[in-house]
């Protein structure tokens, strides 16, 4: 547990700021997990343990929370996380065709990382952008109205 006024450096230093914004440490768990994922790319056991220790929360509780949400990655990923929605609206608008494009171009399959380690692909159930489907998230950026051409154009901006 960190004492008030303590300066924390090194990994997850940003958690101290996050903690201040929430009434309890438990309330800060989700933002803390997002921060950890941003920092490490994915949530390893070590990362979860570090978050637990920083927030003085039980490790099992932290893992339980992290494993529930599909936004949190439990295994190592490529440099960029691509999340494509295949729920009804996006599917009707052609999301499945986009999956085929990604497979052909980058060798990406759902749940996998491209051989060059550049992208990982996750198939999502609705990312809340049904009105502009098909849509996808790349890391935390939302891209909508995708087509076979546009998706390549967008992804090529991520190295």
């Amino acid at each position, binding site marked *: 547990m960190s004492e008030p006024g303590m300066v924390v450096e090194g990994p997850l230093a940003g958690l101290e700021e996050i903690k201040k914004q929430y009434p309890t440490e438990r309330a800060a768990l989700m933002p803390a997990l997002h921060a950890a994922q941003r920092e490490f790319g994915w949530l390893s*056991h070590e990362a979860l343990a570090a978050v637990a220790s920083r927030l003085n929360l*039980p*490790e*099992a509780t932290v893992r*339980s929370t992290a*494993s529930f949400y599909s936004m949190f990655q439990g295994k190592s990923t490529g440099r960029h996380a691509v999340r494509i929605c295949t729920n009804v609206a996006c599917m009707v608008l052609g999301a499945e065709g986009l999956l085929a494009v990604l497979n052909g171009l980058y060798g990406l399959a759902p749940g996998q990382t491209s051989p060059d380690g550049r992208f990982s692909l996750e198939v999502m159930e609705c990312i809340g952008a049904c009105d502009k489907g098909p849509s996808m998230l790349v890391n935390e950026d939302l891209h909508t109205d995708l087509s076979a051409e546009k998706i390549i154009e967008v992804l090529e901006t991520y190295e």
Partner: protein
Amino acid sequence: MVTLSINGRKVELEAPVTILEAARKNGIDIPTLCHHPALELWGGCRMCLVEVEKMPRLQTACTVRVADGMAVHTETPRVVAARKAILEFFLINHPLECPTCDKAGLCALQDLTVKYGAVAGRFEEGKRVFPEVVDDPVIVRNMKRCIMCTRCVRMCDGVQGASAIGVIDRGAGSHIEPFSGGRYNCEYCGNCLTVCPVGAVMSKLHRYTYRPWQMEKTVKTICSFCGVGCTLRLEVRDESIKRVSAEYGDGVNNGLLCGRGRFGYEYADSPERLKTPLIKRDGRLERATWDEALGYAAERLLEIKKSGGGAAIGGIAGGRTTNEEIYLFQKFLRAGLGTNNIDSIARLGLLPAQKILEGVFGQGAAANLISGIPHSEAVLVVASDPTKLNPVMGLEVRAAARAGRKVITIGHVDGLKRHRTHRLEAKTGPGQETLIMAGLLGELLKVKPLTGENPGLEDAIRQWEKTLPGPDEVEKAAGVAASLISATAADLKEVSTSSIIAGRELASSMDMRTNMLLLAALGYILNSRIFLISEHPNEQGLIEMGCSPDMLPGERPLEVSTFREKYEQAWGAGINPEAGLTLMEMIEQAGASIKALYVLGEDPAFNLPARGRVKEALGRLDFLVVQDIFMTETAAMADVVFPALCWSEKDGTYTNLEKRIQKLKKALVKEGIEDWRILAEIGKRAGLPARYRNVSDIFREIAQVSPIHAGLSFESIEEGGLLWPYKGKPLVYSATPYSAAQSSSVSTAAGGLYGPWAEAAWSGAPQAQNGLKLVLDKPLLHSDTLSTHSGALMDLMGGPEARLCPETGSKLGIADGDAVKVSTEQGHISLKARLESGLPEDALFISNNFRGAGAFELFGYQLEPESKTPVLTAQNLKVERL
């Protein structure tokens, strides 16, 4: 008043409970899976659906509260159809491996399927598959069988407070796991096993060895590990304990257990148990008959009495002996052999601590109900960790924290790290609690007015107030922020009831009197119930039954002649008016004034500090008798060894830390003679008439002679035990006529008690404590060496460890798992280092549980002059990597 109808029957209730509770109170059963009375409500399994008139949908009986005029139907065709459908859903995934599942016969899902009828599953996809996880030494996880009722998670989170498991993943992939995904890293209370309705988490100890219906008997008794006195159910077959369990509602523990209690029973069946009496012939212990051994022991003791007087003989008792045994033991020594050299393991802390508190507040000062802890507005835990020493009492502190009470820890109390409001811990580790308590008392006095209820105590407090260290001084010496001490005091300002828990650590200190008086002062100001941690199941009994050199049974001071005369009359023998030697004094005098020792269920050669010297001293004795269940280090040195029966094999009573007398029940018939019978037989040979047929007769005698036990009988002890103040008369020190004649230790004469208080205050500035320190570790899963005979506990912690924090480790060049040699002026041991973050810096924690590497090989001691309690010392402490 709420009136409703259930299945057409009129039901009247005082308070609006849930439909489920209302129904069960009235003998109507509603099936449940996820509901458990000890746990937070969940309403997840849907088995308890009932029909409530005027409500369109079926309702979950476990979460919906009754309302006036409600009409509930629990078994309508609609309800039955719904339950059947729910079972069909459960059985989509639950494998039908009942023939090989240990839970069969105790399984709630199985029973419900029988009741509502098997369903032809319509689900075509395969069942979800999880491999069985068997890599944990005691708990097997079979997640195929899990029905996701989350009872185990709610138990672990909401009751045990360990939060070691959680629901991992989601949807059909959900399963329950510890953080590691494999082996548990938990407190091993096993309370998850009690609440699992199916066979998803099971104990490995008895796996595939029996069927529940093959159990011959289930005996409710009291646990043999610590002073909480939990009620256990011993499930017995073939004169062997197959399983230890507890159910909701059982005993002070309300069905909860700790790892020692639940998994530690195997020692009873250890092949190393002593079976026959032994006599030392030509330097070797050889088998003897009972007659030979009893005759020889009595003869030698009488010889020594004749040549050297009774004062040449001493007796030491351990904390797992029963009240009846201890009573006979001290009677035999006092009346049969004429000696008051009687002491016990309670000398190491509980006895002196209690004596001072009782001096201030009267007898029974620390006799409070554990169940009251969560109702306190604040709980102070000082120096000892109840979650390790008295684990089930520790749970009540965690319950208090969950209920929003303030929990304040003073010193290193690891088990409450997620359950405390304030943590007052010295940077330099244990040993600064006196200073922190004094600082807190000073700050409290500034914000909380004294009530005037106890003028004597208040005078002393006011006198002392002037010398108490300010928070700045505490910060300087102990590194506890001054602002934190003030904030804690401010937080306690409005508190009107509280609990304080303290243990041996405070008493085994050269500042023992100061510590206990500070504790008393804090307790007085905060209106506290005080709890003294008791590390053995009958440590309290040792005190009450007169197993000390200056107290007769009933805690009556020996020096008061009227008390003595009463016992002389009852026993038909004179009692020496001179107080005898204390525990360490007897050892120190071994070979000098002490020629013979009788050791009852204790291992002084291992369990006392300065082990080398203790062993040497025992070696100088002319005659040593040991009564024990194992060949302990002391037994190996004895001239006569009597094999004792263990806790599951005898009747008797234990008195827990609340001063609650509870019955121990004989669950197994084993070869051998009950311990009380051995003592009675020797006593008979020493001329003491013994007309006891059973423990009930001994208890009757105790009730006749001991004023606090007056009017009690063994038969009158029911489940739940007898509560202090029993029926008899406790001593109130200030009101008793002998107070003037008292020694300074319990005197209330002007200045007598409180005088030393003022002197004991602050002689000089508080000292910072620097440098590496040795701390006596008390592991959660072990208790003396006894637990090392239990296979499951050894699988969980199989050897000695030197625990230290990673910072200290790197300073000393020691990595986790390194073999290290630790030495002091007393001796050296080799063991494995274990780095654990969260431990205080410069502190080395070593326990005294494992033969060959016990901490008492390293600790020396110094006697605290007043109580003669050995205070641990460790000179020239060195740690090297091997």
